[in-house]
């Protein structure tokens, strides 16, 4: 059974998706989808513990051995990400019953769950596969389903946002496809493990350089690195609330995973950091992203826009840490993959609660809400603390390692900018807190009750996770350390 787990992780949601169509009642569809996601979470946790104990898990599709056949190869990085994706999917589906029930028409709710499961399957596929083209296919499965999910938003702007995301995302995917083609031309192999060996000994030609560049730009389009980020804010804002939660927590992480694989597994860090001036590029774009997007977030009127721009800034943090090219930096990136999923998941879920009661997430509409919906706003406050990076939250741990990484590179001014970014985050969190707690209650808000338990429980699960993993850091730290050492090829 254990050896079948890698393929089961992908197959179960993939097959479950069309099966949803046979179930008539939306409640049962939701139940079915939730059970599938819990199964996926269980599988990913078992895989993680197994990989932690014994090392890589390998599964060859159809019994065809690599490098001819497609194989699934799970090491610590894959397992870590699969847990993040599956856990967030579980929590989203837990909250989806009420939230989607409110935001999507009854007839279309089944289709929502179908698409959600397809998206989950696609993301899990990206994370477990060991074949580059298979990666592309699953990436597109996940992307197409997310375009559909976004387009289900109530506002007609969701359609435009989805189309923009489609155009940009397909552009990025096609660039990656070109990269794959070039790499195939050079080596004749599509297996990632194989490529890592072959590419090392490949002649240093323009083709190699071009391939790397196409991969890099393609993934940057997908992960919304400033300035290629313009599709993200609208996509997250106008999507249904649960979709925003799921995408904010996972979509960009998957793209970062692909970038990590490209840099470290395919091309090797030696090559990657020296062909392109990767350190300079990532550092510059990262810094620009942090500062510019945080400032833009401060001036937004729509709460979801604030957090969408905040997400772009957080991705920029991860890229900055990646650009440091040392163990602490890579650890910071990996930590932040997990921590940001927790933070943004909690924030967007709290916004889902507000949307459920208020039918709006405009800053002007939440006046005085802190007293009507105390638990929801408290969730935003605590997750906000995590975003700022106050101690005892997960955000502090990521910030610490980023600061350590910049000190190791003797880039102290960068450390100052990282901290300044935290202060900018404090400003937009403060704006929300001030409106919610210190503005007089509007007549509209006087009869607003607290969000239903079905929405509050998942929100607070994530908030408590923020606090728990900020105090008991063994899980995320040990995995990040080992993964970073493995990727950089340093002995533990």
């Amino acid at each position: 059974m254990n050896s079948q787990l890698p393929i089961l992780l992908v197959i179960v949601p993939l097959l479950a998706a069309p099966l949803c169509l046979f179930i008539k009642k939306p409640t049962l569809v939701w139940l079915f989808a939730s059970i599938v996601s819990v199964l996926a979470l269980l599988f990913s946790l078992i895989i993680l513990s197994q990989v932690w104990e014994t090392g890589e898990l390998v599964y060859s599709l159809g019994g065809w051995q690599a490098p001819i056949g497609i194989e699934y190869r799970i090491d610590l990085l894959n397992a870590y990400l699969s847990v993040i994706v599956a856990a967030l999917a579980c929590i989203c589906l837990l909250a989806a019953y009420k939230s989607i029930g409110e935001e999507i028409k009854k007839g279309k709710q089944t289709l929502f769950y179908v698409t959600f499961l397809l998206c989950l399957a696609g993301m899990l596929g990206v994370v477990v596969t060991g074949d580059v083209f298979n990666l592309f296919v699953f990436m597109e499965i996940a992307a197409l389903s997310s375009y559909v999910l976004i387009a289900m938003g109530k506002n007609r702007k969701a359609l435009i946002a989805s189309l923009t995301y489609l155009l940009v995302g397909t552009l990025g995917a096609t660039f990656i496809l070109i990269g794959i083609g070039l790499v195939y031309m050079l080596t004749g192999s599509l297996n990632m493990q194989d490529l890592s060996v072959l590419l090392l000994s490949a002649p240093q030609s323009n083709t190699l350089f071009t391939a790397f560049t196409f991969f890099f730009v393609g993934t940057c389009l997908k992960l919304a690195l400033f300035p290629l980020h313009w599709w993200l804010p609208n996509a997250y804002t106008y999507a249904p609330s649960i979709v925003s939660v799921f995408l904010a927590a996972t979509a960009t992480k998957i793209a970062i995973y692909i970038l990590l694989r490209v840099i470290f597994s395919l091309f090797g860090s030696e090559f990657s950091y020296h062909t392109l001036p990767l350190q300079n590029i990532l550092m510059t774009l990262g810094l620009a992203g942090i500062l510019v997007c945080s400032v833009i977030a401060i001036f937004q009127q729509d709460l979801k826009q604030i957090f969408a721009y905040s997400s772009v800034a957080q991705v920029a943090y991860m890229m900055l840490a990646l650009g440091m090219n040392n163990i602490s930096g890579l650890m910071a990136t990996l930590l932040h993959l997990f921590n940001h999923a927790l933070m943004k998941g909690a924030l967007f879920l709290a916004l889902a609660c507000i949307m459920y009661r208020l039918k709006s997430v405009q800053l002007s509409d939440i006046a005085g809400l802190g007293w009507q919906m105390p638990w929801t706003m408290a969730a935003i406050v605590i997750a906000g603390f995590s975003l700022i990076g106050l101690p005892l939250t997960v955000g502090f741990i990521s910030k610490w390692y980023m600061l350590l990484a910049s000190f190791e590179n003797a880039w102290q001014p960068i450390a100052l900018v990282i901290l300044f970014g935290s202060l900018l985050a404090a400003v937009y969190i403060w704006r929300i807190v001030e409106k919610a707690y210190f503005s007089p209650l509007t007549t509209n808000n006087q009869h607003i009750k607290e969000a239903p338990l079905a929405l509050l429980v998942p929100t607070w699960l994530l908030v408590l996770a923020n606090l728990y993993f900020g105090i008991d850091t063994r899980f995320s730290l040990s995995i990040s350390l080992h993964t970073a050492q493995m990727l950089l090829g340093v002995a533990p």
Partner: protein
Amino acid sequence: MTYLSDISSLQLLVILPVFACLAMACTRKLKNACELMSIGTGLVLVLVTCQLWHNFSLANQVKVEWIELIPGLTLSLSLTPLGLLFALAASTLWLTTALYAIGYLRALQEHSQTRFYQFFALAMTAVMGIAFADNLLTLYVFYELLTLTTFPLVVHSGKETAVRGGRVYFAFLLFTSVLFFLLAIVGTWFIGGSLDFTPGGLLNRPIMNTGALSAASLLLPLFVLGIGKAAVFPFYQWLPAAMVAPTPVSALLHAVAVVKGGVFTLLKVCLYIFGTDVLVELPSQQFMLYLAGFSILFASFMALQQDNLKKRLAYSTISQLGYISMGALLANGSAILGASMHLVVHAFGKITLFFCAGAILVATNKTLISDMTGLGRQMPFTMVAFFIGSLTIIGLPPAAGLWSKWYLLQGAMTAEQWLLILVLAFSSILNIFYLLPIPIRAFFSPAAAITVKPPVNRVPTSMVLSIAFSSTVCLVLFFLPESLFQLAQAILIRSGQ
């Protein structure tokens, strides 16, 4: 009488107020419940702290490790003489303030009293955590916690002015702690390899060996500016802004807990991170001393110009904090003695002054000094207490301020900082000018100038008791300073003097 081991006592001091807060949440509906619990918790804290003091000896190590946040860095508590000093002052004054607050909140019929007591308790946890922190990381955690828990107290009234004041408060404290303090902490970790408070200074060995004096020199200003709670110029604005808080909050937190937490942190950093040997070698030490000196004078001048009593007291606090910061930065034997003693003495003196300000507010609804001429006839007790408090701050006998200022002056002389001696002397004169006129005009102004005509409200008994207690301690510490002195000396021994 040892019912509790020292280790359990240490943890109890930090955790008990949290339970008190939760208990208050559960018993919201019961009348007087939160007040009883406040007093009760305060009593327990004082008793446990006294027991720790009783059992204290430099020989045995009392340390408890909670959890490892980052490999090599744990959240841990330990008992040190400096921490004990701070905890004693803080717990005693918390009990006093809790008593005071009962009368004050009832007299003014403040809203949301339960919430007030809850955050009051949580702030105490943070203070205890700061006092007993074993390493910089633990201290930073509780330092930020203090900012977060005192914020709702500052904006308690919910009015526009309170929110604006709260915004300044939060902005300044967060800005300094995130941008400078955290940076300095990471820098220390990077240079020193650890964040433990080490007798003799953590950076003593690595600095002396590798000659990384310039790096440490950069760290010092980062610490001084980053510890915003010490209100060193130019990051002092939050203190006057926080005066929008109810008087018990201003009294305890901004005369005792928050600001003392700040200078306590600075003392710990100077003594146990840098160490006295390293500190005198750093080129930036001189600049920081001048900054502290400037802070003292600037705040004194600003105090002179304030007509609002609480604002004047706030600027006076900034000035007095400058004294302690200066003592910490001078880092020789007398300076450390003076700084530690002033920590306690100023706490009692300032809280007396704030209590009197609150009593005046309750009795006559006045906040401006110009309205308080002739008040001595109506409120003799309050004004006498005010007088004693002023003497403490100025440093004149028979109030305890004399001893601490004496040692600070000696410290400056030992270090041959003649400019600073001038600053100290001049500032003491300024202290006289901005504090003494208040009680003098209250008692000795001619009958024609009396502006207080309508009958005054009765000042609640609990407030009177608190004022009596704190002013008595000011006098007692003058006549019997030995125990305070002993504890301060223990600090010296531990820091390797």
